[in-house]
């Protein structure tokens, strides 16, 4: 592409900048002079006329110059950025600020130190140190900036492009733990603030004038005296509080608007989990209706939150409830300009209402058929499936709209919008890194949906910052402290620890697990890929199928991983898949409208965990199909229609399938590779697993049988554990080579791996020690060892 700054309109402007730049100042001076002249010559205006005339003319002249300069700095382009091809001069698409930066010789340095709002935002809000600039290819960077540019290439776009293409800046960002996406987020954040301010400044624009609502639209609608007793008018709320920007949910809003506009079946059932933003959807709808920015049939109607719990508390019998409801609904129908909203709708449909609850279905059903009557009923999935769906005549009169969780990026945008409010409230600054941490940690450790969990975490973190510290800026460490307090997971040092852990994962695992080098390496590699975010797949952090005979360490490796990576063995969600042999067992995993799912609930409650599916081959085939999506997409929909996120889990499935075949191959003396290949063929030919299922795992790992040398090491590990336990009681236990050899001799059986060893140690060593301890023969300070010949204790 062509890049020539000298051919641009800004270059032409450069010559006249001596006149334009001071225009604002001169304009101000001559305005003052004009006013002074008027005051001074007030009594003899004729004498002052020449001064006044000259001053007024100069005031106008410089005002005109100043305004014209502003226009020249943002000239209209004849072509849009989408139309650009090789024939265009790229430089003509630069913003004035970018032009000023790029015309300098050391433009990279000028860009980094620029006073442009976008660049300042990146370095100040992002708490990013400025790097030492090195020159870069100007054309390459400007061309790259086209990707993010909207109307013109701004300094922010140039900085994003620099982060993408410049090696020195990339290195600097890695050092500072910053990514290109972070720079993008900050530039877009600044751009949004700028647009909002710009839009507010133009108070004469139609959009801004419409925000004042209207008078007299209700004159043709009747009063709703009874209804008003139980309602909150969202229109009044908008008038008092002003406008709030809602992020996401555009699809749901459009659906609701089109349903409400219909002549028939114009009632909405808004289904979503608490915290996904159902209230925000209603607020945004009421804002649009108040300003007349919705559809013509809905504009200027009243959106009323009908508080049925107040009605329930003021009435004593079902008859009284029905009478009062009849009045309210009739008023709503007759007024013709009311859209009712009821929260927790499922709570008011109980067939046998207990004290404090009411059943509105009878009265409501009558009105739902009327086109003048509009209602938005809000419920959650549990309430929808367990109550509303069963009442088919009632649910048939509603159109269902599902409110889904907003994405992490949208949540970040929402938090950015909330920053001014929280900063003003707590008189503290909020760094971008803290916001990023809030989204990351709430995604990983908190179970309620986005955006609620992130908003709550921001609120709690700000409260923590202002009450427990003297710090002026909210930083990631504060967020970690708050999350640690909430979840009891030691996060504060995890970042540094995690890096160290991941780099030395094999070593850490081998402190508990003997041999199985290939399996350990495979798991460690996959985890490193997942945490460094270099893998492209969208499933869980890692997914593995462990194959091999029993007792070779499959479950032990999973436990070790849970302890090392997730902090405790208890962070492992374990399922014995032999308990899920029937198709009906799917319900136990994903739940029904009556009962919670064993798998889905645990993952919702603890999204950062290890899932162990033991003896997978014993599970029903359809249950395996259920995991196809989890392994592929990283989410699952439970029986209530809720999306359960598995992206922060590691899934390990173990399988003993083909054990007999492994034994035969071992007897024949085949190598591990040969056994693995043979085993795969067997599993697929026998239809135990389908190829597409096996391929969904990050890795399928074969655990080889343990040798006598491995068993010796395992025996040592087990006896060491025993030694530690005895040491707590003051008894020093000596582990001898002869004892280990004897234990291995008694327990060696390739079919059972190390499992038999546990039994031998228990029967021959632990039992004897227990008896001696109870009889009081083993006292504090005594040294003890076991005679391998007869397993008697020798003390000294």
């Amino acid at each position, binding site marked *: 592409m062509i890049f020539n700054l000298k051919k641009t309109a800004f270059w032409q402007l450069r010559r006249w900048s001596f006149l334009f730049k001071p225009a604002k100042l001169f304009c101000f001076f001559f305005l003052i002079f004009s006013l002074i002249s008027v005051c001074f010559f007030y009594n003899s205006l004729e004498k002052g006329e020449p001064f006044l005339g000259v001053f007024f003319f100069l005031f106008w002249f410089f005002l005109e110059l100043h305004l014209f300069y502003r*226009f020249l700095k943002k000239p209209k382009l004849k072509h849009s950025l989408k139309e650009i091809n090789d024939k265009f001069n790229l430089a003509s698409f630069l913003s004035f600020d970018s032009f000023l930066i790029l015309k300098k010789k050391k433009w990279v340095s000028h860009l980094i130190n620029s006073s442009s709002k976008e660049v300042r935002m990146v370095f100040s809000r992002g708490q990013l140190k400025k790097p030492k600039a090195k020159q870069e290819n100007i054309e390459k960077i400007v061309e790259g900036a086209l990707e993010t540019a909207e109307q013109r290439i701004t300094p922010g776009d140039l900085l994003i492009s620099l982060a993408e293409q410049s090696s020195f800046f990339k290195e600097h960002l890695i050092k500072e733990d910053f990514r290109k996406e972070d720079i993008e987020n900050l530039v877009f954040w600044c751009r949004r603030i700028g647009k909002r301010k710009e839009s507010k400044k133009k108070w004469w624009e139609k959009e801004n004038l419409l925000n004042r609502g209207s008078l007299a639209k209700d004159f043709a609608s009747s009063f709703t005296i009874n209804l008003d007793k139980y309602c909150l008018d969202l229109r009044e709320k908008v008038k008092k509080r002003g406008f709030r920007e809602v992020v996401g949910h555009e699809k749901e809003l459009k659906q609701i608007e089109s349903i409400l506009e219909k002549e028939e079946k114009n009632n909405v059932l808004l289904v979503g989990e608490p915290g996904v933003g159902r209230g925000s959807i209603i607020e945004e709808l009421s804002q649009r209706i108040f300003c007349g920015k919705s559809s013509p049939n809905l504009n200027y109607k009243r959106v009323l939150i009908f508080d049925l719990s107040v009605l329930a508390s003021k009435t004593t019998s079902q008859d009284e409830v029905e009478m009062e409801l009849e009045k309210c609904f009739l008023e709503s129908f007759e007024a013709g300009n009311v859209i009712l909203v009821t929260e927790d709708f499922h709570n008011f449909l109980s067939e046998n209402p207990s004290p404090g609850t009411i059943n509105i279905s009878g009265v409501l059903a009558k009105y739902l058929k009327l086109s003048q009557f509009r209602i938005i009923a809000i419920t959650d999935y549990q309430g929808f499936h367990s109550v509303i769906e069963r009442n088919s005549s009632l649910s048939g009169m509603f159109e269902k709209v599902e409110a889904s969780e907003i994405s992490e990026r949208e949540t970040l945008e929402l938090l950015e919008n909330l920053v001014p409010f929280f900063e003003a409230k707590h008189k503290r600054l909020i760094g971008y890194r803290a916001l990023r941490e809030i989204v990351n940690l709430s995604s990983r450790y908190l179970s309620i949906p986005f955006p609620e969990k992130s908003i709550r975490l921001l609120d709690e973190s700000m409260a923590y910052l202002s009450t427990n510290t003297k710090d002026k800026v909210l930083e990631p460490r504060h967020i970690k402290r708050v999350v640690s307090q909430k979840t009891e997971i030691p996060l504060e040092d995890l970042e540094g620890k995690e890096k160290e852990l991941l780099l030395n994962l094999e070593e850490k695992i081998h402190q508990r697990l003997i041999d199985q080098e290939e399996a350990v390496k495979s798991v460690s590699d996959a985890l490193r890929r997942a945490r460094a975010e270099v893998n492209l797949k969208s499933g869980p952090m890692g997914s593995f199928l462990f194959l091999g005979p029993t007792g070779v360490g499959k479950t032990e490796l999973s436990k070790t991983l849970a302890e090392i990576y997730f902090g405790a063995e208890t962070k492992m969600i374990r399922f014995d898949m032999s308990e899920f042999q029937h198709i009906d067992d799917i319900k136990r995993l994903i739940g029904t409208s009556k009962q919670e799912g064993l798998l889905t609930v645990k993952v919702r409650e603890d999204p950062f965990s290890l899932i162990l599916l033991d003896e997978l081959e014993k599970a029903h085939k359809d249950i395996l199909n259920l995991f196809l999506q989890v392994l592929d997409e990283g989410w699952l929909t439970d029986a209530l229609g809720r999306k359960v996120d598995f992206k922060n889990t590691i899934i390990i499935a173990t399988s003993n399938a083909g054990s007999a075949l492994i034994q035969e191959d071992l007897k024949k003396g085949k190598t591990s590779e040969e056994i693995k290949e043979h085993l795969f063929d067997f599993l697929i030919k026998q239809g135990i697993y389908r190829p597409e299922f096996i391929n969904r795992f990050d890795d399928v790992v074969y655990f080889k049988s343990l040798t006598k040398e491995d068993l010796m090491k395992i025996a040592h590990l087990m006896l060491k554990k025993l030694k530690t336990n005895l040491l707590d009681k003051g008894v020093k236990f000596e582990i001898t080579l002869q004892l280990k050899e004897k234990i291995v001799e008694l327990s060696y059986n390739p079919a059972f791996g190390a499992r038999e060893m546990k039994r031998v140690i228990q029967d021959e060593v632990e039992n004897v020690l227990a008896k001696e301890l109870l009889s009081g023969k083993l006292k504090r300070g005594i040294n003890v060892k076991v005679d391998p010949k007869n397993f008697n204790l020798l003390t000294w």
Partner: protein
Amino acid sequence: MIESSSKTPLFFKWLHWHFIECSGGILKAWGNFLSFNFNYFSILDLLKSLFSHWKKDKVSYGKGFSPLNWLNAFLSNMISRVLGAFVRIIVIVFGLFFEMVFLFLGLFLFLLWFFLPFLALVFLYFSLV
């Protein structure tokens, strides 16, 4: 090489900006105000429902014919309609008043801006001569 930004001489750019861009902007804002005011006072809606009952407050004539009841309903409905018309007319008058204010204010601002360069020169000339 295609240039996307215009490189006409600054004086012509100024002429375009002052007399087309800015004047057009003022006309647009003027139009916005007139339409906003018309909508804010709901003038069209009020005219359409000028003689409707005030807040839909009407009395039913009931079944059968009872002269007293009929008279009662008729008078009540008449009062409601008259009251409705009265309030609506007041709002319409207010609305039209502001509409006129915006109409003349907008016209004045537009003309002032359009002729400001000439006015400034004339003012300078007469003050110096």
